């Protein structure tokens, strides 16, 4: 069946809209004096894009000469990416209000979002890489957006690590292309299954390393805490909740589709990597004085939790193929990604509020945990939202984070990885310590200053994330179904 222009527009409606909007905003930026309207434009565009991508028909098959496909998996991730952008834009409305270069912030953010959406939809290595680069380059610039010293350092680190990882990925892809003569992920998988050799392993290694950087798996995680800490906080929210998830969707596509078929015992190696990632992330997070850095390390730990899906699929693959178990494992990880995206975005925005407050009071180290003392009374809404996000991250019901962790525990038990499930549980309890410490400062210490006026955009952003966290936590059915059909895409 040939698809006409109308089909393309309906399938790629969200991407087209956002691309058009970016062009428009660049043009408007040249003429407008008051640029505050740009933020609202971006907001409206993202809002419409959210509906377009949820409503897209997921059964049409590949388009653009078999390089792009709109399916449950791609739409699931687009839902995450667009929502995270939306929340970040809301916060940006306050953060960059009346700043002369604010339109650039929104343009970069939208470009990054488009790149991520392309990655989510790609079924071709080349398209995937292009989307990846579009998102990466935009976020490099965003990390340095405030042009402060620590921004620049963070961005530089991010840029160097990011380009090396992109290069590695590309090198891996090129070997795969050389071996199989195709860049279509499905064809690469089929051919490499037939002629598995040392070269395929080398390619695999490069691809895993490339994605490992983006996902911040140990030992490729070093850049993440520094970059997260140094970037403007709302950009950090976007990096941790959006950009990192792009690494996961790409890894899901390439590692699963192209490489699961290899029937190797690589899953044990991956299991060890996952175990180290979550333990290291949590142990280091405990020692942090800066809440922002603590959340960055908790992100590393989360990368480990999410990557349990790889191990589950590997374990299933290794001993008798039961697709149901593998599907549940992936769906569980997707739910964890969803929960983590909303909770982390929200938590970083709360950090931004505290940082903003501390800076206005002229203190050093705006992210230090000391500034959280008595936040429950100084900024009640922020504190309450932060409380819920932290409980969600630590897996306390009824929140989105709980549902995700619950399902991942279940899937690990189901595939017989009891030791991993137990380790995950212990890690989760360990992480509770540093989350509770922040809560303790917020509610149980005497306030360190007067009550503050909470910036409206930030509050709105947090409330949106809060509603999402509770909604997913209390009514997970629709999302579990969605995640399940997304997981099915990967296994066919």
């Amino acid at each position: 069946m040939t698809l006409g222009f109308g089909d393309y527009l309906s399938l790629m409606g969200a991407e087209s809209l956002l691309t058009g909007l970016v062009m428009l905003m660049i043009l408007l930026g040249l003429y407008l004096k008051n640029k505050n309207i740009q933020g609202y434009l971006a907001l409206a565009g993202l809002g419409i894009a959210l509906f377009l991508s949820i409503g897209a028909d997921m059964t049409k098959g590949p388009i653009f000469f078999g390089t792009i496909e709109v399916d449950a998996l791609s739409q699931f991730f687009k839902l995450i990416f667009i929502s995270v952008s939306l929340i970040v834009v809301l916060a940006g409305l306050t953060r960059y209000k009346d700043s002369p270069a604010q339109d650039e912030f929104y343009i970069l953010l939208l470009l990054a979002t488009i790149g991520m959406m392309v990655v989510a939809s790609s079924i071709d290595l080349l398209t995937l890489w292009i989307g990846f680069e579009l998102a990466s380059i935009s976020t490099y610039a965003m990390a340095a957006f405030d042009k402060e010293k620590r921004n620049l350092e963070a961005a530089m680190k991010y840029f160097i690590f990011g380009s090396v990882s992109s290069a590695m990925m590309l090198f891996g892809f090129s070997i795969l292309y050389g071996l199989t003569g195709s860049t279509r992920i499905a064809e690469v998988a089929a051919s490499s299954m037939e002629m598995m050799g040392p070269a395929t392993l080398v390619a695999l290694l490069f691809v895993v390393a490339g994605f490992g950087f983006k996902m911040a798996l140990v030992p490729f995680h070093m850049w993440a805490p520094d970059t997260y800490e140094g970037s403007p906080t709302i950009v950090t929210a976007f990096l941790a909740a959006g950009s990192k998830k792009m690494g996961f969707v790409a890894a899901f596509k390439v590692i699963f589709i192209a490489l699961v078929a290899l029937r190797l015992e690589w899953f044990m190696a991956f299991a060890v990597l996952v175990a180290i990632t979550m333990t290291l992330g949590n142990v280091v997070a405990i020692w942090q004085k800066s809440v922002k850095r603590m959340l960055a390390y908790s992100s590393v730990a989360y990368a480990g939790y999410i990557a349990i899906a790889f191990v589950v699929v590997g374990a299933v693959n290794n001993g008798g193929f039961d697709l149901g178990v593998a599907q549940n494992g992936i769906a569980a990880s997707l739910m964890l990604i969803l929960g983590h995206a909303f909770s982390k975005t929200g938590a970083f925005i709360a950090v931004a509020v505290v940082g903003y407050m501390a800076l206005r009071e002229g203190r050093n180290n705006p992210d230090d945990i000391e500034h959280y003392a008595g936040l429950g009374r100084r900024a009640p809404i922020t504190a309450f939202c932060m409380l819920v996000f932290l409980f969600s991250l630590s897996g306390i019901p009824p929140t989105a984070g709980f549902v995700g962790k619950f399902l991942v525990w279940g899937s690990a038990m189901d595939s017989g990885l009891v030791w991993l499930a137990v380790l995950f549980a212990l890690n989760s309890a360990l992480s509770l310590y540093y989350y509770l410490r922040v809560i303790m400062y917020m509610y149980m210490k005497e306030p360190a200053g007067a009550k503050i006026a909470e910036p409206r955009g930030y509050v709105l952003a947090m409330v949106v994330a809060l509603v999402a966290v509770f909604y997913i936590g209390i009514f997970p059915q629709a999302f579990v179904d969605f995640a399940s059909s997304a997981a099915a895409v990967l296994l066919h």
Partner: protein
Amino acid sequence: MMDNAISLMIAIPLIAAIFAFMNGKFAKYAALIGSLIPLAISLQMFREFDRTTNVMQFVESYDWVPAIGVKYTVGVDGIGLPLILLSTIVTVLVVLYSWGEKKRSNQFFALLLLNEVGVLGVFAALDFFLFYIFWEVVLIPMFFLVGIWGGPRKDYAAIKFFIYTHVASLIMLLSIFALYFSYRTPEGLRTFDMMTLLAATGDSTIFSPMALNLIFFGLLFGFLVKMPAVPFHTWLPDAHVEAPTAGSVLLAALLLKMGGYGLFRIIMPMLPNVSPNYITLMAVVGVVSIVYGAFLALSQKDLKKMVAYSSVSHMGFVLLGAGALSVLSVQGAMFQQFSHGLITCVLFMSAGTIQHTAGTRIISELGGLADRMPQFAVLMMAGFMASLGLPGMSGFVAEVSVLAGSYENLPIYVLITVFGSIAVTAGYHLWAMQKVMFGPILKKYLDLKDPHSYEILSMSILVLLIIYFGVQPATITDIMGVAAEPLVQPFITLAQTGVI
């Protein structure tokens, strides 16, 4: 209305909690109303409850997350209903006792109500997912009650409480998953339904003995930590000593009962199918908790800490009664849960009142308070007498039932308990009472007077209830007996066929 009695009972305190949180001025009124309505509902349920059968009553069941076999299913039987009644009574009285709370009163009363939501949910949930959610939700209000209104080492106590019990819950959760993934309904679906999964544990084609024993251990561990049984009791004294009075009362009267409830609801139905060594284990841990807890209480200098250890000792009876596997002992253990819930309230309220009137809880620094606080002295005396097992009060009935019921199967254990703990228990209660309340009054306490009327009122109601259930235990033990029978029946059958 009674069709949705349980859901209403859970929802109303939640709504009231939100109101209380929003408006500090009306917080206590919201809390009182929000806890009185559930009390009325639970009393009505208790009246309408069919006492002759063991089937679940007031059942509500709705699909919730069908993708993973989760339903919202709640219902009560003779195991859950007494504890629901206990929770609603205790919450009202705690709200009453705390009527004078000034510090951040909106949050305080909201947390009391949130706690009620959690415990009612635990005692009514019949779906493992739902059960686990409520089980974890309970941690949150208690964490804040200890952490905000607590004593000098509140930070340490609150975090220790949260993490210690959270780890135990996670281990329990992993066991729940092992049950969940082993069983499929005849339609080939997964389910978290508690009754279905527990019934399936009897099927040896589904569960290998090895797997079942491991699963059982995980669940038992979760409940033993919550009860708490020696040697997993170390979080309790810290939490109690630092918690505010209302927190201590809720902790001892309701949260510990969750562990005991798990024992009857989940552990005992599985017991016939697991290694018999577990029965010995439960009885041994029970006896050790009773005796060791009593000795620990004897050695305490702090009145509240003494009461906290007495809880460990008294909860040991629940474990012993459950492990003895006779109808009388199991029924006695269930009644011990109910009765201890009432008695310990009086004890902790006494300790709290002494703390805020006299300014210290150290037993050796107190003396002769009865002289200036006659009404309070009567109530505290009544509470202490009930706790040491004075006939005519509910504690006596419960402990005698447990001991008499256990004698048939576990005579040695009963003897150890009787000789090891009864005298000690009487000793620490009487000694503390004598030192704190009686004797010549110390000069510094000359200007004390009886505490606020709301404190006296809530303690009096409790004492009346204790005496009522001491004289008329059958009001509630009948439904416990009906619930105990099917739990014990498999063992009687096994004994008759000569397997044990």
